[in-house]
């Protein structure tokens, strides 16, 4: 599913170069649920961005479902993100002034898909929010907003869900509900990679990858 070989990412900050990732090699199999933990500055966000095809590595190879990601141009990357990956963010990133339903529809706009309304409704239903379809994000509780974001991530039937601190803005009870939802999705066969720094969140996953200073400290 995810094959990373000796991935290095170097940021240029003026004249100094900052290595955010130093030779990461990692495999995630189809249907796995993996957490990446580590202190801030350890490079876990950078790793997520590369896995999510938002960023390209400076060195090394990345294959996603056998596709050589390094070879793709911006438009092809956008297409991969649209069709294969669902993103979940700490701060939900829903469009304000737009209903839950329209938020869920958003990825479908960019592939010009038909019967969007219906597909979005189904996705909302699958996260248990059908009754809140017409509400705007500001009218929804944090857990509900994150469910809308999950429905949006699911809309194109992705094979991979990437969640960056998905419970960071939620209370313990809601966090638990969201993690159970992730587990449920994982059982349906979706690969899930999530970044967190909370050990009890990582405990929901089958495997934890511990990062420090741009390298994998421990995996398993």
């Amino acid at each position, binding site marked *: 599913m995810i094959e990373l070989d000796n991935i290095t990412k170097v940021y240029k900050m003026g004249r100094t170069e900052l290595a955010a990732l130093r030779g990461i090699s990692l495999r995630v199999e189809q249907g796995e649920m993996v957490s990446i933990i580590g202190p801030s500055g350890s490079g876990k966000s950078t790793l997520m961005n590369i896995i999510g095809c938002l960023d390209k590595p400076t060195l090394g190879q990345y294959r996603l479902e056998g596709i050589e990601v390094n070879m793709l141009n911006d438009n092809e990357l956008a*297409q991969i*993100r649209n069709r294969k990956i669902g993103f979940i963010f700490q701060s939900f990133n829903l469009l304000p002034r737009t209903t839950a339903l329209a938020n869920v529809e958003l*990825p479908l706009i*960019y592939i010009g898909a038909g019967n969007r309304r219906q597909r979005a409704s189904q996705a909302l239903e699958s996260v248990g929010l059908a009754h809140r379809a017409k509400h705007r994000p500001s009218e929804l509780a944090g857990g509900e907003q994150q469910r809308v974001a999950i429905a949006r991530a699911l809309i194109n039937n992705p094979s991979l869900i990437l969640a960056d601190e998905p419970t960071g803005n939620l209370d313990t009870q809601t966090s638990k509900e969201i993690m159970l939802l992730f587990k449920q999705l994982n059982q349906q066969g979706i690969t899930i990679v999530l970044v967190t720094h909370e050990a009890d969140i990582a405990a929901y996953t089958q495997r934890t990858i511990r990062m420090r200073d741009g390298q994998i400290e421990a995996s398993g």
Partner: protein
Amino acid sequence: MKLWDCFITALRAVSSNKLRSGLTMLGILIGVAAVISMVSLTRAEQTMMTESFESLGANLIYVMPGASSTMFGMGGPLGTAQTLTLEDAEAISDSRNAPSVAMVAPVIETSAQVVAGGENLGARIAGVTPEYQYVNNLVLAEGSFITKPDYTGRSRVVVLGSQLAQELFGLRSPVNQTVRLDGRQFKVIGVLESKGGAFGLEDLMAYAPLSTVQSTLTVQRTSSTGHTIQAISVQARSEETIDSAKAEITDILRQRHHIREGEDDDFTVMSMDAISGIADQMYGMIELVLGAIAGISLLVGGIGIMNIMLVSVTERTREIGLRKAVGAKRRDILTQFLTESATLSLCGGAVGVALGWIVVKLASAISANLGFPFPAMIPGDVIALALGVSIFVGLASGLYPAIRAARLNPIEALRHE
């Protein structure tokens, strides 16, 4: 991303911040409204002017005393110099000298105190010959025009312009009534139809036989070549012979006035089409000035839109990042913001057209109340042009902000606070 989705997204964005959108539109709105109303009013005026010119008479040539030295050849010399004579007119009407000329109508003009019943007012009196009616395309409302016997017999008869007749006699028929011109009795033999339009002055005039006016109302003036008159109206045989008629008239007059080779004419020969050409030129200049004003206001409006779009891109950086994360390509973001600025501008333009239409309607209504009715309409091509230009301004001013949005790095955009 389909254009329709872009448009829906744009409308949502525009309507989500109504006050800001409204204020941004204002620049375009005012510009378009001003241009629409000004252009429409000028066009209406121009149409009326053209109709007036046409009502003056076909294939008409004016001969006036004095050289045409002033700008546009209009205004200056008329009536001040005294170089034209009745004998000049007779020479022009001789078809051996001027084969292209169909009819000649000499005019002397004076003013007189006109009294009828209790009414007493000053009016311009034109001393004319029977030909004047045909050359100048005068239509009688009732009665008859001055005849040959009236002219040769120096009859004291007068034909009244429509408005003058109304002011003197009200609703009564003036025909066969008596009026006094500077104390002398004249019989009214006819009343003219109104010419209206831009030349309403003619409706206030009275026409009497040239011979009568010469002998009774003016001090006889003669020059070396004969009896002085103020103007000669000439009708060419056809539209094609206007230019040759003008040349023939010029030749005759130069010869009669003993003007040597190289010296300037002491008279002005001007055909109606040349005069209306001058008017068209003037309207062309007015439209040019209006166009410049429009350009400036649209530029200002465009800068306003660009400003707001830049603010909007900054404010919605996270939204752009998210859209990119879920699969928006650069193109999609570019189109989204371009559509948004074009929609903004087009809305402003559309409201501007509506506002301009209201202004034209109002102006027309007010003008009609004052007695100068004109048709209130906004030409379709002006509307289309205004809306097209609005869209163009929107696209042009949205281009830079849209490019900036499209180039945003999704990771940094998502991290933006």
